[in-house]
Each structure stands twice: as C-alpha cells, then as structure tokens.
C-alpha cells in the first residue's frame, strides 16, 4: 500500500507543479496590467507609481523567481494580495468563503448519496416498475439539465407556484440552505442512482446470489448481505471526482441563491482579472481533486479485497 501511495504521489506532484506553472505563466502573459486601475474613466497611474507598485508586488523580478517565491509562499497559505481589493490578502478573501461552499457541498452530497443509493437499489429490485421509471427519469433530468436551469425551475415551482418555501437568499438561516442544497444535489444524485442501479442489476444476476437464494436465505437477507455488499463497491469509483466537484460548491448555484461561497468570488475575480485569487482557487481545486481521487482509490482497495493496490 505504501509503495502504491508513493507511486501515486510521484505522478500527482508533477501534475500540480506543471498546472501551477502553466497558470502562472499564462496569467503573466495575458494582456491587461494589474498596475492600471480597472475602473472605467480612471486616470492612468504614473510610471513612477507603477514602478513602486510593481516593486511592492514583486512584479519587477524575473518570472522564474516570481514563480518560486509564489510556490514557497503558497505552501504557507500566503497567496499574496488581491489585485481587486488592494488592501486584502487572498487568504482573507477566500478564507471565509470556503467553509460556506464546503457546507453547502457536503449537505448536497449527503442528500445525493442517501437518496441516490436508495433510488438505485429500489430501481434494481423493482425492475421495470414505478421506482425504475422514476430512477431513469431523475437520472435523465439530473445528468442533462444544468443546475442553473434547475434552480430557475425550482424557484418557479416551489417558491412562486406552490409557495412551500419562502423567498430566501443568503446563507444565514437553515431556510436559506434548502433550495441551493436541493438544486446542487440533483446532478450527483442522478449519477449515483444510475451507477447503483446498473451495479445492483449485475450483482443480482450473479452466481453467488443464485447460490445464496438456493440455500434458502430470505430475499431480504440475500439483498442486504449478498447483493448490497458487493453492488455498492463500483459506485465508489465515481465518488472521487464527484466529491471534488460537489463539495466545493457551484458558482452558478451560489450566484442564483446569493450564497457567499468560493465559486461566487471566483467568478468575480475572473471578471476583474484578479490573478492572485484565480491562481489560489485553481490550485485549491487541483490539489483537492487529486487528493479526493487518491482517497477514493485507497478506500476502494480497503472495501474490496479483490483489488490489490500494490499490483
């Protein structure tokens, strides 16, 4: 196992280094200077003022040196000052938004796993029945309809039409959590339900399940101890990218429901070309995604003894 982990890290680290290097160079090469004010009709800064600013931000040094300094500081969670809010550091800006996004994402993920697995199991055990059609329907909608479209439909139906949920926005009270969580959970729910269903169907038709039935086990026991135990392993493989994508929230859901999460600040920083914030968000996503994939691979090896990670 440790050899496997070491092998994975050997691939992971260069990937992240190259990613950060490419982003870093890309952002330095792009047109538009952070040394000029972004407000329309603002007076341009004098060359002396620009020089002073460049010196303060370290933009006068060679690019390789800038990169190495950046990486060294990034390890200490210092991503520099925001170009947009000139008096606030990136860590100060993103720090409070990350827990909000994680909170929203984890709630959505919990719903997606609980409902998705249940739906997938019910669909497989009642093939071509009501649950199966419901599962297929939700899977189709959830996979193909973007979440910002879902958000509009949900607001029209539940808030304006049925009036079961009050008008909300923000992230203060649990009432505010309902809609964004529901909307965000739909896509992963659909994926999980689809995977669980097909993996359950495969398990149900396997020989060891027939043997378990032949031995006279009750249907309930066969399902719980023989089918479920094996059928839930394959859906685990998709959890890595899914956790990384969902747990970090969604810019779209955060914008529509006015959730003060990381995604919203990311969009704001892209629109304003606030490179330090953009870099930090990308690095975070990159590391988080790689880490989640690794965690899931290791989990996979623990849950399924047939898989030997040492190879």
């Amino acid at each position, binding site marked *: 196992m440790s050899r496997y982990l070491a092998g994975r890290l050997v691939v992971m680290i260069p*990937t992240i280094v190259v990613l950060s290097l*490419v982003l870093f160079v890309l952002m330095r090469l792009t047109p538009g200077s952070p040394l000029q004010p972004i407000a329309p009709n603002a007076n341009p800064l004098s060359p002396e003022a620009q020089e002073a600013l460049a010196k303060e931000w370290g933009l006068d040094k060679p690019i390789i040196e800038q990169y190495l300094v950046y990486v060294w500081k990034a390890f200490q969670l210092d991503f520099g000052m925001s170009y947009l809010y000139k008096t606030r550091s990136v860590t100060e800006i993103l720090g409070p938004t990350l827990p909000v996004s994680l909170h929203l994402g984890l709630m959505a993920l919990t719903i997606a796993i609980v409902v998705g697995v249940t739906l997938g199991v019910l669909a497989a055990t009642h093939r071509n029945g009501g649950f199966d059609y419901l599962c297929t329907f939700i899977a*189709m909608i959830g996979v*193909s309809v973007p979440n*910002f*479209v879902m958000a509009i439909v949900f607001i029209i139906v539940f808030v*304006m039409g049925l009036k079961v949920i009050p008008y909300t926005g923000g992230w203060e009270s649990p009432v505010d959590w309902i809609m964004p969580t529901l909307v965000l959970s739909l896509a992963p729910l659909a994926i999980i339900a689809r995977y669980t269903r097909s993996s359950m169907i495969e398990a149900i038709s396997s020989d060891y399940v027939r043997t378990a039935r032949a031995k006279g086990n009750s249907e309930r026991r066969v399902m719980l101890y023989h089918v479920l135990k094996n059928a839930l392993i394959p859906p685990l493989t998709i959890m890595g990218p899914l956790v990384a994508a969902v747990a970090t929230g969604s810019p*779209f859901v955060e914008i529509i429901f006015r959730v003060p999460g990381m995604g919203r600040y990311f*969009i704001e920083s*892209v629109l304003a070309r606030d490179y330090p914030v953009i870099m930090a968000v990308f690095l975070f996503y990159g590391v988080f995604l790689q880490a989640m994939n690794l965690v899931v691979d290791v989990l996979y090896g623990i849950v399924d003894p047939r898989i030997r990670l040492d190879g």
Partner: protein
Amino acid sequence: MSMVGTSQDSPPPAAAVAAPALDVGSVEGGGQPIRRHRSLWGDAWRRLIRNKLAMCGLFGITLLLFLTITASWIMPYDYDYQNFGNIAEPPSAEFPLGTDLVGRDMLSRMIYGARVSMSVALISQVVVLMIAIPLGAIAGYYGGWTDTFLMRIVDIFYAIPQLLLAILIMGVLGRGLENLFIAIILTSWLTLARQTRAQMLSLREKDFVLASRAIGASASRIIIRHMLPNALTPIVVAVTFGIPQIIFAEAALSFIGVGINPPMPSWGQMVGEYQQYLRSNWHLATFPALAIAFTMLSFTFLGDGLRDALDPRTRD
C-alpha cells in the same frame, strides 16, 4: 440526426461494414438464411426508430436545426429592436413570450438564441473532431513518446474542472464569439482524443490489423481504412453526447457574463441576467431556462438511443 443521416447516405468504407455486418448477419439471420442482407447502420437505424424517447430527441433537434437555419426569417422582430412602448411586458398576443427590460421581443431573442447555441455547438464539435481524432489515433497507434506526451497533457487538463478552465480562458481573452470558440475547443477535445486513443489501443492488437500490416499496408492506410471505421460507433456516440456538453458550456459561460457579447442573445446569458428579476418578471428567465433544458434533453435522449441502437450489448 446528421450523424445517422450521413452514414446512411454514404456507406462507410468497405472494411467498416464487412467485419461487424457479417457478425450481426450471422447471429440474426442464423435461422433464416434467405434473409435480405442488412448493414450495421441499417440495423442500428431500425432499432433507433423503434425507440420513442430517441425519436422525441430527434424531433427536438430537428426543430432546433430548423430554428437555427430560418432564424432571420421567422423572427417577428429584430433581436435587438427595442419597443420602447412595451418595456418588460408579460406574454401577450403581440409578444407571445413577453418583452425584456429594454423592450426587446423575447420570442425573437429566443429564436436567435437557438441559432447562437446550435452554431457554437456544431462548429466547435467539428473542429474538436478534426483535432481529437487524428491526435487520439496517432497516440493510440504509435504509442511511445507521442502517446506519453498526449496523455500527460490530458492528465494536466483533467486536474481541474473543464468548465473552470473555460471560464478562466474567457476571463483572460475577454468575451465574444471567437474567444468562445477558442475556450470551448481547447477544453473539449480531451475526452474525445482519449476515447479514440483507447479504441486504437485495443484495435491495434486485432488480427485484421496485423494482417494488413503483413501485406505491407502503410500506417496511414491501416489507421484510416481499417482502424477508424471500426472505432466509429463509440465516436458517433461520443459526438452526440459532446454537443450538449458544448451547449451547456456556452450557456454556463454566458450565464456568468464571460460568453457571447451582448446584445447578441444567448439563452444562458438571458438566464444569468434575468434570474434576479424572477419575482417581478417571471417570464424573462423562465423561457430561456426551459429552452436550455429542452435542448439538453433532446440531445441526451438521442444519444442514449443511439448508444443502445449501435451497440445493443450495452443495454441492460
């Protein structure tokens, strides 16, 4: 539609039909030897038209293509004509989908939005095909450093969500139609290249490839005449699922405000701009949102149907 249509009109190269069609024929026609010869694509087409959902999808796509082509003639108003007397009106006989905050007819903007979405998706997908297929085929066939290099690039691209990358590219380049193509093409060729490579890797070991190599066929001939036609089925399916992905990407980028350049209408941009006015003007964001859902579902229905029709084994 277009994929199936073209394959029907011009049958794929001989090698493509020969191997799989024989296979299908011998299995299906086992009991009835006098049965008329059926091609792989003919069989797939027959399975497809029996699939009701896929036909709904095909109908939806046909409708969208019709709107795309005829947009300029069937729009009741110009998409940027402002009726100053009719600001933010709900749907009425004069304006079936209402007007927006500056008095532009929503129906006209929706119709032109279909043209924007569909042309971005179709043109990008064609370019993606032209980049991804040769790259994937060469990497898969030759292996070695070309393959390693390509796969490392893919790994790096995959280390971050593709949509975020597209957002970043648009943020750097600035919004507009040309940049939208660049951002979308740069972020969508990877998946198809990887799939093509995987297909090539498995086909490379097949006997018929060995046979063509043994009789001295050149590498380009083996790839184009023998391997690619056999990899066509998964590629067709990937393309059908790739188009809605691009439509989604365009809508998402425009939603955020880094996509098309207003006043050109885009459904995503309309949803993004008008979602804050849902309470006072419900019609502004709702119709574009439904249009996006309709388009995405149409392509998904057809894609699912095509996958089942082209490879019946994948159906559970």
